[in-house]
């Protein structure tokens, strides 16, 4: 992929982000932060590449450390979002 193709994806994704985030209900802004936290740990992709590569032991260990950090975030972020979202309940209908 050349730079322009990547830039196009980036710019379009910014617009998608803009419209999607404005449609998030304010009541869920805290879960929004928690889940964006979790998904921004997709940086684990870079960490995995570094951890897998031969050639530089230092880079490999840095990669593994980054895998640990990103995993904390991924598991922690999704789990805490799940926990919060489970708490949002509607009024019970009185029968």
């Amino acid at each position, binding site marked *: 992929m*050349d*730079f*322009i193709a*990547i830039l196009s*994806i*980036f710019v379009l*994704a910014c617009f*998608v*982000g803009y419209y*999607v*985030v404005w449609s*998030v*209900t*304010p009541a*869920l*802004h*805290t*879960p*929004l*932060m*928690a889940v*964006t*936290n979790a*998904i*921004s740990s*997709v*940086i*684990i*992709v*870079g*960490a*995995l*590449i*570094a951890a*897998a*590569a*031969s*050639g*530089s032991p230092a*880079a490999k260990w*840095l*990669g*593994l450390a980054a895998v*640990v950090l*990103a*995993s*904390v*975030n*991924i*598991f*922690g*972020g999704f*789990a*805490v979002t*799940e*926990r919060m*979202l489970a*708490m*949002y309940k*509607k009024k019970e209908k009185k029968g």
Partner: protein
Amino acid sequence: MEHVSSTPVVGHLAAAPAWAMLAYLVSGVLFILALRGLSSPESSRAGNRFGMIGMLIAVITTIVTHSLANIAEIGIAIAIGGAIGYIVAQRIAMTAMPQLVAAFHSLVGLAAVLVGVAAYLNPEAFGILDTTGQIFKGSRIELGLGVAIGAITFSGSVIAFLKLNGNMSGAPILLPGRHILNLGVLAGILVLVAIFGRETPELFWAILILSFAIGFLLIIPIGGADMPVVVSMLNSYSGWAAAAMGFTLQNTAMIITGALVGSSGAILSYIMCKAMNRSFISVIAGGFGAEASAGPAAKTDRPWKRGSADDAAFILKNAEKVIIVPGYGMAVSQAQHTLREMGDVLKKEGVEVKYAIHPVAGRMPGHMNVLLAEANVPYDEVFELEDINSEFAQADVAFVIGANDVTNPAAQTDKSSPIYGMPVLEVWKAKTVLFVKRSMGGVGYAGVDNDVFYMDNTMMLLGDAKKMTDEIVKGLAH
């Protein structure tokens, strides 16, 4: 953008199989759906699942195309991190959510820095070497920006965490000449990135060190009450850091996610600033709380009425409609459960109970909503400022608990007030205002007196928010 056209099709990434590129695209789309789900509580949990699946796809794709050889080590690393994250997520108290989010941001920032350094040390593995054995110029700029944003996110989030967690005073720390210092450092970083893009690879380390420093410098002058903006801003940065790394790795999932998270944090910062009627620049410049409280505290000896819990219980019981206004003080004293009990008792008595939330109540966007949800308050009883403000005039009681500045009429009437122009909850329009507050001495973070305290229809309930609510619940029982 000449460096771009010179990108030859060599290296691992350019050679990534088509299926892998499609898989990354799919996970990017799933992340979009994860955020889309949050448009309503009903769809939100499905959205979260989409996010998890997206992450799983991205991780598996990367492992299959790159890391199969080291699968054991990587498995252990994921297991360690995953266990820590999961346990923390299960144990954390909902009131500590702002700290947790700040801590998570710092991890994303640090991970971005580590990945950036690894790419710098072993560029071949990332497929960013040109034919002469140098890192592509474009990739160097992306790397420089990536580690810079990552480092700022890390050190800034650490400070935000320390302030939110109470390890560090929430009061702004003001260095002399900080604006010039900060602008100088920021400009320095940009210049270094530009030079690093052209030559002198050693500058990489200088960029890193300066960026760690500016993260600290930017956040220490910002006061506790401005934290909603700071946390949102750091959220945004963590996204841009991921996006910059995505450019280096030419990875669609990372770029889409980075853009989503970046815009999400930026929008939240904007909403928070607007709710305080302050410009983003003034929040970032910092020092709000300090300057205001340093001014002459014009304490008047105006008369005010003090009520007991029993008085409050009597008034609440005889009301037809009660609007509860929670603020940070409710979170501090963990009063949300007792408050919900009070609401339940009132509802049994046939009183209509609603909750009104100001966007900046608490220490992060949506903080109050989560706490009320935790206490089992149904979300359809909880309303945002613009949806409920017109209802105060028909309410018998406005029950303000742990909020102050967000109910101050000076924001509408007094042009000299530091909070003038900020949208406020018009609690004073209710027949009676019950104002739970620790003491009469303290003023809100803006350091301004609140006229509501002295109005004829206001009864001050002085004491700890939780204890006072507890006593009111007891008072309602008899």
